[in-house]
């Protein structure tokens, strides 16, 4: 087993940079049993709200609980799918529109496991992690974000 069965920090201050994603991909080139990587990236949208457009989302979390929960989700997904690697990164603090706030990365010998696991991870992260996004509108008001199922 190449993955470590210990809780990992998943939180990143501010936006997740494309360079971080590139480094993460490059780090897997030595794992020559991997045939497919599946990546999901959440990006902050400039949604229209009453009085203006979203300019950023400010994320807060119940960090200790979120890390315990993320560990539990990781274990479940590793049990369910034949994965080589799995990585989860979520932003805390302010992330501007157009920037990346979530990076989920699964790798497997074959594509199907990587894709199915990635999708399930994203759904569980959105549903089960105690993380909250507050949409900051450009007229200085704010709206608490609500997750949808699409």
């Amino acid at each position, binding site marked *: 087993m190449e993955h470590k069965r210990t809780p990992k920090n998943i939180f990143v201050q501010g936006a997740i940079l494309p360079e971080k994603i590139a480094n993460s991909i490059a780090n897997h080139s030595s794992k020559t049993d991997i045939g497919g990587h599946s990546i999901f990236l959440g990006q902050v949208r400039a949604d229209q709200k009453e009085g203006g457009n979203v300019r950023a989302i400010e994320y807060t979390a119940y960090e200790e609980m979120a890390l*315990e929960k993320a560990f539990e989700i990781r274990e479940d997904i590793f049990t369910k799918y034949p994965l080589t690697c799995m990585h989860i990164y979520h932003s805390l603090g302010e992330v501007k529109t157009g920037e990346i*706030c979530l990076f989920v990365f699964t790798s497997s010998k074959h594509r199907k496991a990587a894709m199915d696991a990635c999708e399930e991870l994203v759904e569980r992260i959105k549903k*089960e992690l105690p993380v909250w996004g507050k949409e900051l509108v450009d007229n200085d008001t704010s709206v608490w974000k609500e997750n949808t199922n699409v």
Partner: protein
Amino acid sequence: MEKINTSFKVIAFGMIAEKIKTKELVLEGIPNTDVLTGYLHQQYPELQHLKFSIAINKKQAVGNTMIPLGAEVALLPPFSGG
């Protein structure tokens, strides 16, 4: 006779923290989550219209759950990560 300290910490997040205007409360003498909810609804009437769940020592409580001595209790509005 010694007095047992039944206080516990309540931490609030997101919209709930905003409504009750604090991130942390210390309460005492509240045996379970149903009593806690009743207390909060009475103290902070605005919470009556908000959905939130309660975590005890970082586990989400399902149904009415006992609050153990010295527990860390958290008030969690609907999650909206990602």
